[in-house]
């Protein structure tokens, strides 16, 4: 058997005395797609950052093609042919799409200056291989999260790296883009490139990977060929036996529940913003979870933002508890009793600030109009930390030291201290592990019992199917179909979208 392309042995890493990785052995074979799964905080991203030269301070050894290597910067790793798409996107929002595709490697002309025309042309070619149409001159920050993720994928996939690490690359994508990405990954693998694929979508991991490694509490507990491996086996390794209900893949029909005739809390009529969505009308009743599903760029995220006044819609009316409201800014919406969790954690969280400040920013005025009460804040935050199983359970830790999935739980917790009238969630389970997703289902069920009107907006079918009582499908900015009190499955939903 040939030597593995990349070998890590006995790699350990701890942050301030807390072990994130314990003596991990990990091998990558040339030309494979290697899946990596594990609970939130298991250490997946940390190990990959070591390979990509981002984390430079660790114990253990790394061999690349049999040679010992030690990267001191991401540039070292890039020179050695290793590229990574990070879980928290690292795009430069103020540069153009083309510049982001060629970040750090702009093509130069004979005079040593950036060859702008060539760069734009090649950027378009690269993006077309992922079948995305974007203006290469557009500013990155104006793109939707999904498109930003695709541009980053293009950057790393076409950078010529022979080992490409993808840390939750599909978390902002919808099924068509995922399919295209998988097609491309398979083609590139057959050309001999090697991939690490991290995801919490176990079906996806099993479908695309040759082998997979399961992480648990900082250790690599199993490596196995994917052929013939069941989702059940993976979940057992990840979190232990006895979690049958987490296996749901929504391939068979599930029945949407009959909704009791409660009173309408939120009614939206003819909501329009040119270029984003048009003539969107729906109602959400008290104690109901309405799901809006659509592929990337179908306008469902924009509708959610408009209901938080950020940015507002240009036409149409919004009626809350029978009264017409104008939502022209986020403070307006909050005052009217609307809470919103946007799709991107960067839009929601303060990385340098402790966990408790992140959770209480939305309710400071209810704690005390003038003064801060850190004691009260910490108590409230500790309650959420328990409820959401946030790890490590320390509310003073800076938020950025939490793993991606745990950060998402903080984002969710921040609106749940004082219950709003309407809770709008955009991609609420992005980056969460199977157990955490289940916690979210439980929490939303209990909020529904308390009479909240909940709107779940997503481009990821499982999220909507597991949470919603009624489902609207959007396509190209308009609502095209409603599923209510009828059987529905993933396939049926995707067909409609």
């Amino acid at each position, binding site marked *: 058997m040939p030597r593995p392309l990349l070998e890590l042995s006995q790699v350990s890493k701890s942050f*301030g005395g807390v072990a994130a990785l314990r003596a991990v052995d990990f091998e990558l074979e040339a030309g494979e797609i290697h899946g990596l799964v594990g609970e939130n905080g298991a250490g997946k991203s940390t190990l990959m950052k070591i390979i990509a030269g981002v984390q430079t301070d660790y114990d253990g*050894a790394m061999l690349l093609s049999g040679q010992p290597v030690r990267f001191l910067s991401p540039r070292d790793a890039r020179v050695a042919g290793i590229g990574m798409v990070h879980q928290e996107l690292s795009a430069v929002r103020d540069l153009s799409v083309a510049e982001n595709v060629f970040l750090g490697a702009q093509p130069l002309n004979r005079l040593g200056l950036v060859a702008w025309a060539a760069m734009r042309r090649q950027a378009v070619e690269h993006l077309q291989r992922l079948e995305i149409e974007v203006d290469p001159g557009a500013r990155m920050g104006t793109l939707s999260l999904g498109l930003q993720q695709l541009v980053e994928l293009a950057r790393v996939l076409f950078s010529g790296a022979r080992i490409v690490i993808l840390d939750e690359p599909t978390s902002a994508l919808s099924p068509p883009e995922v399919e295209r990405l998988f097609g491309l990954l398979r083609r590139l693998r057959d050309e001999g490139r090697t991939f690490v694929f991290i995801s919490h979508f176990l079906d996806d991991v099993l479908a695309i990977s040759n082998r997979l490694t399961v992480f648990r509490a900082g250790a690599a507990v199993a490596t196995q060929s994917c052929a013939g491996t069941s989702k059940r086996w993976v979940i057992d390794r990840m979190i232990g036996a006895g979690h049958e209900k987490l296996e749901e893949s929504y391939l068979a029909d599930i029945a949407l529940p009959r909704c009791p005739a409660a009173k309408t809390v939120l009614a939206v009529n003819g909501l329009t913003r040119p270029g984003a969505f048009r003539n969107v009308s729906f109602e959400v009743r008290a104690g109901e979870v309405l799901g809006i599903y659509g592929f990337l760029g179908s306008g469902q995220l924009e509708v959610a933002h408009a209901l938080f006044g950020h940015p507002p819609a240009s036409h149409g009316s919004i009626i809350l508890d029978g009264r017409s409201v104008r939502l022209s800014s*986020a403070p307006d919406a*909050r005052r009217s009793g609307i809470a919103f969790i*946007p799709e991107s954690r960067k*839009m929601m969280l*303060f*990385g340098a*600030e402790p966990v408790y400040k992140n959770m209480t920013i939305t309710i400071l005025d209810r704690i005390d109009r003038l003064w801060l009460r850190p004691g009260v804040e910490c108590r409230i935050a500790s309650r959420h930390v328990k409820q959401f199983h946030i790890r490590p359970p320390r509310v003073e830790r*800076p938020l950025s030291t939490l793993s991606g999935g745990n950060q998402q739980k903080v984002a969710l917790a921040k609106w749940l201290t004082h219950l709003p009238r309407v809770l709008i969630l955009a991609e609420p389970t992005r980056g969460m592990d199977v157990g955490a997703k289940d916690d979210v289902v439980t929490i939303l069920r209990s909020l529904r019992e308390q009479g909240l009107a909940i709107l779940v907006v997503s481009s990821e079918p499982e999220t909507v199917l597991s949470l919603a009582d009624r489902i609207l499908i959007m396509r190209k900015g308009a609502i095209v179909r409603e599923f209510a009190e009828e059987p529905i499955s993933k396939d049926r939903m995707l067909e409609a979208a």
Partner: protein
Amino acid sequence: MSEIPETASLMPTRRMPGWLRSRMRNVAPFATLIALIGFFWAASDSFASVGNLQNILTQISVTGIMAVGLTFVILCAEIDLSVAGIANATGIVVAFFTTQDASVGIANVPLAGWAAICIALASCFVLGAVNAFGLTRIGIPSFIMTLAMLQIAAGISALLVRGQIAYTVPSLVSTLGSRSLGPVPWIVIVAAIFLLAGHVVLTYTRFGRYVYMTGGNREAAEYSGVNTRAILSAVMIISAVCSGIAGMLGVAYFGSAQQNEFDTYLLDSISAVVVGGTSLFGGQGGIGNTIMGLLVLGVLNNGLDHINIDSFLKILIRGVILLAALVINVYAQRLQLTRST
């Protein structure tokens, strides 16, 4: 005893303990201050005395009052270049509405002392409000908006004094600016009160938290329902009013009101905030840092007068210290980022 672990030899750097990395921005100015005091103490006989401590504190008081407002602005990741201009204009306004000696050829409008003070406060408030309007409603970057305001304030000053010098200010202002309470100059007490109030507001009030959050991640603050426009408007006005008060007391402290007399204070107050370690990127730092920065600059300026060196070299030395502080500021930011990736 033959093998040295490979990791040790390959990893000579980056072994700075975590607590030091995250506190770099607080530790560096403090260490600088101690080093400067130690140096001047050793190098000069006249530096270490109670009288000179009083000098230092008096010398940094006007800058200190301005720096309080500026700290709010920089914490929000904005900048206010009009602080010195507004200080100058406000100082001139208060003198303009006070009876001047017959020898002063300014067409002034004498009013009661309290009225002159109120008009002066109102004018710096309005100038701050114009800054706020330009920044939050029109969307002019604060750098440009306050650059224009600097010019406008200079224009107001010029129109009011027309190249003359005024000497009289209301008695309240002249007491606070130039008299002492026992051994302690009033202006030092006022500066201490402003710094303390600034610290209390930033650390213990809801508004202060919003300032940090707006600076730390403006988008996230907005999505959390924080009215960031209101916060930014408030900090621009706070900055202008602090500057205005510093300007009035400064006029009393200098004993005269004239064009361009605050010009060096723009750089001094920005330096104080930045040397103290408040992040230029917003969200990190505070009044504690500003106090450190004020003391570093105060000790440096004062100490250089106590040792025998070329006065032109002093200017260069100040520049070098400022550069070093900027390097540390950016470096501290980077350390924090690498820690949190």
